[in-house]
């Protein structure tokens, strides 16, 4: 019976789920992340249905071109991440380092672009409270150039609230990812990972792909719909 083997090898005791602790742990943790984003995205969906006129048409307020580039960047960073994992799995230290550095850089660039985007939006008068009175955007809205805030302009506040909270928390997750990934990269340069032991790379990778996945959803529902 399989159990004889199960009992004899002490290492096999770790095989309750068939995976090592760190990997199981990160998947469990991601379960809680799913619920966290459920609270944010779920609220967005609900508030959007409740205020159909409060959200601008795509491209009116948000800069889609810029964000599309940013999305592409994040997708690229996801593929470099998985390539880094594949590299260490095959014992290729050089490629591991290369791909990790690329991932870190692209992740950081994503955050940078997002900060730039925020600065612009705030400058135009779009903030977490909605559209600032007397701002450039407010003028355009008054001139009827925006489909935003119809029929009740007051409801437009919800647009800013949901936009900044959701993208902000995503950005926060990316930032945390970049920080952790930097740590992993440093460890990689010190040669701590090998073809047989590369748990850190896989764990940070899972987190990173998850954050990418959330962005895929956010990009569609926040910017394009």
């Amino acid at each position, binding site marked *: 019976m399989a159990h004889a083997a199960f009992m004899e090898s002490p290492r096999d005791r770790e095989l309750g789920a068939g995976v090592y602790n760190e990997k199981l742990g990160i998947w*469990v943790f991601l379960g809680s992340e799913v*619920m*966290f984003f459920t609270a944010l995205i779920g*609220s967005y969906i609900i*508030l959007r249905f409740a205020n159909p006129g409060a959200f601008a048409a795509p491209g009116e307020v948000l800069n889609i071109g810029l964000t599309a580039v940013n999305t592409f960047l994040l997708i690229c960073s996801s593929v470099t991440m998985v390539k880094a994992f594949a590299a260490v799995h095959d014992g290729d230290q050089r490629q591991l380092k290369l791909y990790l550095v690329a991932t870190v850089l692209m992740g950081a660039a994503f955050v940078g672009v997002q900060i730039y985007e925020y600065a612009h939006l705030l400058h135009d008068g779009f903030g977490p*409270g909605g559209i600032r009175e007397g701002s450039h955007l407010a003028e355009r809205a008054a001139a009827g150039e925006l489909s935003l805030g119809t029929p009740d302009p007051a*409801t*437009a*506040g919800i647009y800013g*609230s949901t936009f900044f909270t959701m993208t902000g928390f995503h950005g926060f997750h990316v930032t945390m990812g970049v920080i952790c990934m930097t740590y992993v990269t440093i460890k990689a340069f010190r040669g701590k990972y090998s073809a047989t032991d590369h748990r850190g790379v896989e764990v940070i990778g899972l987190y990173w792909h998850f954050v990418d996945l959330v962005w895929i959803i956010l990009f569609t529902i926040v910017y394009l719909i």
Partner: protein
Amino acid sequence: MATTAIPHEPVARTEHQELPFIRKYIFATDHKIIGIQFLIMSLLFLFVGGLLAMMIRWQLGFPETPMPGGTVLPETMAPGGILLPEFYNSLVTMHGTLMVFFAIMPLLVGVFGNYLIPLKIGAPDMAFPRLNMWSFWIAVPAGILMLAGFFVEGGHAAAGWTAYAPLSAKGEFSGVFAGQQLWLLSLAVLGLSSILGATNYITTIVNLRAPGMTWFRLPLSIWSLFITAILVLLAIPILSGAAIMLFFDQTIGTHFFDPTAGGQPLLWQHLFWYFGHPEVYILILPAMGMVSDIIANGSRKPLFGYHSMIYALIAIAFLGWIVWGHHMFQSGMNPTLGMGFMVTTMLIAVPSAIKVFNWMGTMWRGNIRFHVPMLHAVSFVAMFVIGGLSGIFMASTPVDIYIHDTYFIVAHIHYVLFGGSLFALFGAITFWYPKMFGRMMNVFWGRVHWFLTFVFFNLTFFPMHNLGVGGHMRRLYDPSEYEFLQPLAGTNRFITVSALLLFTVQIIFALNFVISLFKGKRAPENPWDDNGLEWTVPSPPPHGNFVTTPTVYRPPYEFSSPLVEEDHLPQDRDLGQKTDPASAPGTG
């Protein structure tokens, strides 16, 4: 026999002593120390929460009468010893918050999750000991943030522990600014601590079980903690998300719950209760699990219907996700949805009934030993039933129209949370105290404490049902405002006196707890003749718990087994294939 083969001075212990004090007791990574740290913290919060309850009770029993010692409170809270209405609201809010989030939840999940899981599944420690340390040291600042709210301008949060928006969303409505923000921040931080803890528990239980410890050989305490951890993992992030949105409404001007700018006050309620109902099961499931352990031990019988007990736990946890609307029947929620929630809520009575009757089944034809943990455990069953049955009234939507937001609800809360969770905790603390501290608690004073608590608990909370039936609203600073509540003033005073006595007799417990630490009789390895793996190691267990990884041969509740002379049969005792059909470490 494998059980007794474990030496009393294992190697691990000497290694343990090499750790400097700060690593051993402050920034400890040993799950047992972390459990004890949680124990100290949450008992302190339990005490503070109880103190706040006494102030609440004083105001309700003797409105407009200066509270004894109340003059030490600043003018902004109680000028001349008379509580202000805004301070009363803070008291109620903080009583509920501290009890739920900082006393009962850490006691059940933080203390016993930490202490019991590795010991009972035969693991040397948690899967992530350092993460475990963080989960405690993140909870501490959360507690400090929460307490800090009492000292800020405008007073502490005063919108109830449920923090309904928009009262909680805008300072102009409540007069509370920083207090509410600290409240939200603290809960978000505490949430992180809970999530880290839950991640750890789940990973540990899945991956670190000793050989032979199959899923259906886990004690119910571990099963319940496992299911609770899943609930924590999935429910708490909802609260964190909602709390952050409310925090933003307060601070950076978002409008999530602000109806004047497109927000939805009911959205807060939905999010809060979507977390909140699983939360109340977080507060009862571990209690149920530990009570199962204690009742089987006290009755000297295998747990009646072990498998259905597990399925009932799972059913409660699952149904717990689809009943949240029963807190919102009168909120203006879609009434058809309300009907659906009524049905699911009713159904929860079924797995609860299975549990209650199986506990009774366990005692049936037993050989019941009334050690102090058993007294508390049986009280748990008796009291939980009252709380559960009062839940049926509220689950019936038409009846809830009348009793919603009355003292009937308050009675329900305390029967399930004090009569339920806290009695179970008294039982659990007395049961595992010898293991934790290597000393026995005093039995005589334990019995006295149990008896007086049982009596005064019922005298305090049972009449609250009658208040509720009389229409007495909750969160009511001064019931004498209403004419129809005047006749209930006597009952209110009676409750207050009982509550003061209830609080006073807790001193017996506190003293017994503290004095036994130093003066208690030395605890043997297995003072209750129990079967769990934790009783095969010294009290207190050394760092690393087990010298050699134990092997498990049988289910956890083999009391009075015909296979052996004694009336208990530890999980790790090898009887050899011939005599013991359950001997092979089988599949799970």
